[in-house]
């Protein structure tokens, strides 16, 4: 059993509850153990950074300091220095704070001075902050995931939506690419889903603009939904509660604003994993989404012949040969270099 | 050489050292009889009874040869070194302690106060009241003294002039025998003593010269302790196998005794001819075989040498540039 420290993030307790439920449902078949960081606080999302620099990073760093205290083995359990954040914004904030405290030591000194007021301290670099999907793809491995699948998602056309804060800015070089990462595609494919080529996979959902400039956000949501629809996706899969919230909860608003009629359900990738692992929709929090996924999910469970994985170029090419596709392997290698 | 018809006089003294040098002399077996046959042994506390005052009473320069082993750690060592220097024509700095400090010299890494404290207050010492011996004590017969410690241990040649150096911990018996033969020949006028400052009883190159192991171009990714390698290749250079062997920088003369039997050289014969600082030579030897170009990777490899200072200065600390502020070997 592999142990990780879990930073759930605020959404997990409310709007992203389904994410939490579905994560709980997949840890066991994948032999994972998540230990929640005691008394963690909000990471400040994108809001605090825009007001005050040092308080914002101190807020984030309190979580890192608390997590660092929990790295050691307790009562015979394994020790770990890896913090898992399933929310992209939380992941980015935690990872970025750790990185900037190293890149600009003066920031690290001030943050630690603030932490000292609460009898805490954090040495940048102590922890390894990673996102849930990073753990699943690179630690657990697609092989293990594939072997846990009992109900392959054959016939379900999924648009893999990574969002922006996960693959970028990626100071730690964790992803195969900043623009077209393949981690989510590979994982969904391992579940048996028909993964569509979705060029907007790392485009923005609008973030907090749904709150402060809805028109801007609606346009961004429209682009995502329209392109997924254009490519015949039945469902979008996401890795971030904020993305899920924006695309799901604001889709009707957006439709009204543009006079469109899209119906593009969006589920957490962990919910799809749970389904593939044979869990019941209810325990995975399926049904709490506002754009319901009933029709889309009707495709699973129905006997559908095995579809070929779309490895060949999207459009059949005659004439001139195409260059070899950029592989994930090369991507990571280059990135690390 | 003044011999004056009678047998020339011989002395040997043991200052701050373990006594191994004395055993090494006895290890020459019957050769020791040649010493007796050719010399009049006037002072050798470990072998015969003689009083300091007897030596003090001798005429200056009346002893032909003194083998002085041990470093100078206290005022008694210092007194005897100066005394024997005055009385002797040839003063040989005998063994690693006298030449370069040796193991006792490692104490120079600690302030002398700490050393005293440690000696009387270790966890194995039952000394709850922190009682220290007194420096002097009145008894009916008069005042008794124990020697005062110096702040650092110094090699002999920082205290008195030395004519020859004979390195080794201890000097190999076959080398001692050869030196005895040489001195006898000198006494008989059949040979010349090497010039002042020379190293005798040792070679000019390094241990590798005598080491039977095969050597190639070296490049290592890891330093390991010898016990962590299984099995150690019996025919291949130890350094090439990642074992920090001091042989490349250590003066030859011992017939590569340690590496020949599978233990790395620890450097008791000190630096080769003309070398100013022994540790520097080992630093550059070890770093030269590392196969890495990034600080992280190099550091990882260097972590394989847990005590680098002890590794490169085990025998030479008191004789090093920084710890005694002098050239390791006063040669040339």
């Amino acid at each position, binding site marked *: 059993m592999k142990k990780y420290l879990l930073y759930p993030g605020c959404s997990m307790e409310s709007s992203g509850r389904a994410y939490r439920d579905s994560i709980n449902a997949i840890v066991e078949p994948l032999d994972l153990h998540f230990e929640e960081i005691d008394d963690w606080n909000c990471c400040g999302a994108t809001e605090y950074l825009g007001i005050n620099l040092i308080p914002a990073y101190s807020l984030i760093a309190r979580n890192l300091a608390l997590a660092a205290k929990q790295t050691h083995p307790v009562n015979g359990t394994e020790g770990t220095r890896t913090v898992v954040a399933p929310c992209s914004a939380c992941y980015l904030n935690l990872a970025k704070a750790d990185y900037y405290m190293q890149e600009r030591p003066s920031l690290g000194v001030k943050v630690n001075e603030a932490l000292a007021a609460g009898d805490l301290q954090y040495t940048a670099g102590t922890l390894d902050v990673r996102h849930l999907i990073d753990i699943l793809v690179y630690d657990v491995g697609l092989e293990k995931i594939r072997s846990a699948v009992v109900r392959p998602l054959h016939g379900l056309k999924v648009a893999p939506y990574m969002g922006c804060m996960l693959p970028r800015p990626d100071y730690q070089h964790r992803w195969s*690419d*900043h*623009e*077209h990462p393949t981690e989510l595609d590979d994982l969904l494919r391992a579940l048996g889903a028909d993964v569509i080529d979705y*060029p*907007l996979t790392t485009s923005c959902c609008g973030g907090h603009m749904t709150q402060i400039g809805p028109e801007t956000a609606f346009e961004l949501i429209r*682009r995502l939904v*329209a*392109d997924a629809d*254009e490519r015949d996706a039945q469902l979008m899969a996401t890795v971030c509660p904020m993305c899920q919230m924006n695309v799901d909860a604001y889709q009707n608003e957006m439709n009204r604003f543009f006079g469109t009629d899209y119906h593009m359900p969006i589920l957490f990738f962990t919910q799809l994993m749970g389904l593939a692992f044979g869990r019941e929709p209810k325990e995975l929090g399926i049904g709490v989404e506002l754009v319901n996924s009933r029709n889309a999910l009707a495709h699973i469970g129905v006997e559908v012949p095995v579809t070929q994985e779309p490895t060949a*170029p999207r*459009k059949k*090419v*005659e*004439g*001139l*040969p*195409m*260059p*070899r*596709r*950029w592989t994930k392997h*090369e*991507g990571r290698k*280059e990135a690390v270099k | 050489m003044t011999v004056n018809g009678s047998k020339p006089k011989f002395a040997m003294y043991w200052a701050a050292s373990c006594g191994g040098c004395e055993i090494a002399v006895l290890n020459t077996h019957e050769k020791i009889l040649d010493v007796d046959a050719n010399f009049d042994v006037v002072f050798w506390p470990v072998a015969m009874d003689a009083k300091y005052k007897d030596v003090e009473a001798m005429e200056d320069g009346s002893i032909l040869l003194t083998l002085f082993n041990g470093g100078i750690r206290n005022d008694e060592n210092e007194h005897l070194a100066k005394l024997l220097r005055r009385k002797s024509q040839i003063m040989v700095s005998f063994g690693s302690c006298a030449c370069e400090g040796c193991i006792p010299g490692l104490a120079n890494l600690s302030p002398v106060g700490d050393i005293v404290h440690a000696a009387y207050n270790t966890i194995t010492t039952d000394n709850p009241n922190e009682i220290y011996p007194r420096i002097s004590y009145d008894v009916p017969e008069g005042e008794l003294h124990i020697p005062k410690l110096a702040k650092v241990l110094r090699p002999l040649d920082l205290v008195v002039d030395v004519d020859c150096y004979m390195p080794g911990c201890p000097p190999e018996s076959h080398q001692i025998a050869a030196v005895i033969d040489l001195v006898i020949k000198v006494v008989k006028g059949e040979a010349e003593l090497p010039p002042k400052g020379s190293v005798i009883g040792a070679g*000019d*190159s*390094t*241990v*590798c*010269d*005598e080491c039977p192991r095969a*050597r*190639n*171009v*070296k*490049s290592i990714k890891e330093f390991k302790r010898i016990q962590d390698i299984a099995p150690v290749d019996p025919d291949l*250079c130890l*350094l090439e196998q990642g074992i920090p062997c001091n*042989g*490349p*920088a250590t003066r*030859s003369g011992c017939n590569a005794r340690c590496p020949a039997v599978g233990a790395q050289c620890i450097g008791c014969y000190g*630096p*080769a*001819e*003309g*070398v*100013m600082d022994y540790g520097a*030579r*080992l630093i*550059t*030897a070890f770093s*030269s*075989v590392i196969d890495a170009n990034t600080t992280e990777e190099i550091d990882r490899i260097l972590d394989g040498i847990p005590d680098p200072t002890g590794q490169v200065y085990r025998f030479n600390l008191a004789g090093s540039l920084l710890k005694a502020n002098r050239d390791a070997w006063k040669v040339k």
Partner: protein
Amino acid sequence: MTEKVGVYVCHCGSNIAGTVDVEDVAHWAAEKLGHQGVIIAREYKFMCSSLGQELIEKDIKELGLTRVVVAACSPHLHEKTFRIAAKNAGLNPYLVELASIREQVSWVHSDKVVATAKAKAVVSGAVSRAIQNAPLEELKVPINSNTLVVGGGIAGIQSALEIANAGFHVYLVEREPSIGGHMAQFDKTFPTLDCSACILTPRMVEAGTHPNITLLTWSEVTNVAGYVGNFHVTIKKKARFINEELCTGCGICQEKCPKKVIDDVYEAGLGYRKAVYTPFAQAVPNFPVMDKDNCTYFEKGTCKACEKFCPTGAIDFNQQDELLHIDVGNIVLATGYDLFDARRVSNYGYGRLPNVFTSLEFERLSNAAGPTNGNIVLRDGKTAPKSVGIIHCVGSRDRNFNNYCSVICCMQGLKFAHLVHERTGATVYNFYIDMRTAYKAYDEFYQRVLEEGTLFVRGKVAEVTDAARYSNEKGKLIIQTEDTLAGKQRRIPVDMVILSSGLQPRHDAKEVGKLFGISCSMDGWFTEKHPKLDPVATMTEGIYIVGCAQGPKDIPSSVAQGAAASARVLDKILQKEVALEPIKATVNKEMCSGCRICNGLCPFNAIGFLADDNVSEINPALCQGCGTCVAACPAGAISGTGFSNEQIIAQIDGLLMRNLEPA
């Protein structure tokens, strides 16, 4: 006291005297360093002037000076001057020591007291060092008049021809089956739009038939030993599986070969060749090679179609790689460049979006001898584009990829714009950060392309996508960028995108550099001896670099460098011998114990091991004098002239003023 030292302190006008009390320094040296052997200390306005030099020469002769210390400017400026003066006066030039009290003292400090004190320390260090200096003699070695040119692109061809025409023999080695290099892939060359093949082919033929050129294609240099004037080079002549004696170059074998292979090299992956092939029709030499990895016979043991049809029986499946050993005096490296791999810029979609092309692909697309016979079409092989976007600076001027400017991409982009415009009439956009059209007739070409109606957008393209946002974008590639001059984001739908990819050092440049004993810059290009004054020579005597191996450049510059290097080679050949700096390391065999620690340290392979004597040995002609082995020898058995331990230790003591008391 055995040495007689003269100390000469220069005012350098007010350059030194303005900040350093030179009189004080001279008096001090005479007084405090007298016991060291200083018998005369003078100051003078300009020591480097002829009068200043005469002063020194006179003292050497009249006072019998054995060492001279000149406290003046940096040794890089006038060390040679004073050494020659000493030589004229009969003193070995290496007994002169310079103390830099201008660059290191007067120019960088302002407090006169502090500066004067430092100047004294510097002089003191120099005096102590000078006393330890030893007379040295330069080493003269003869020059072999043969030359090796590595790389048969235009730069290498030019270089080889210049030397061969002067009457000396050249070995021209090329890794590919034919010489010609990248230039042979191009259709037109900017800015004159000459047909590339028309101007290159005659040069290739000339090189292929020149009596003074031994052409070795399909060959690679595997080992280089020796030193300037006397290199011993091993060349691997890879098996062609074609008997060159018998082959007439008729081409029947390739016609009959049933195996089609994507041609990644010459056709840039855009076309096919056979398993037995000549890369292109005008190849020099015109013998085909067999691609063992793709040949059906080598794979499965049957086929041999080529052998059956060859009219002269030239196919030889048993041919083996051959090792040639040649001796040359000089080596010219013209190893060229690799194209930046555009797949790395994933936001430009190359490799994912079919109609995104690289510059080299487009060169082949537009080449009349290329896979489409010069028709500019989309990847479906038939549709002509109605609109084309050309993106500059792909992989260049970008810290995510290569920091440097690739030099040729602007002009290349303009050339593409012209060709597209001329052949298809499509609307052409050029997206650039800065237009760099320096050099003769280049900007005129820019004007011409402007005139033709090419649309220029100043902005580094953010992304190329097929995710249509509006109806006019459906089915197109959309180029999204900020038009920085309009200050607005634009989305421009086009049919075809051409990436003006940058140039990169060859993927194996580091290894090649190591093989020849030269270094690479941070970016990976070979490092020249001096970026301005010696751009074709390298730090290793006798090795020259030309063309893109030295850095990105266009054809005219490559040709110029090829010729320039030849001039340097001919100069060496005609001198017949070369003097080597006498700063060398030597092994004292008595003290060497054969530990072999030094053996792996020399990048110039100057250190050999004599197994019989169990000692290492340094070849003085190969030794470049870096001193690494001297510092490394654990036995202290290696000593280095010019920078000996004694000299440096003495200088340390001198700089720390530990030499002011008699020892």
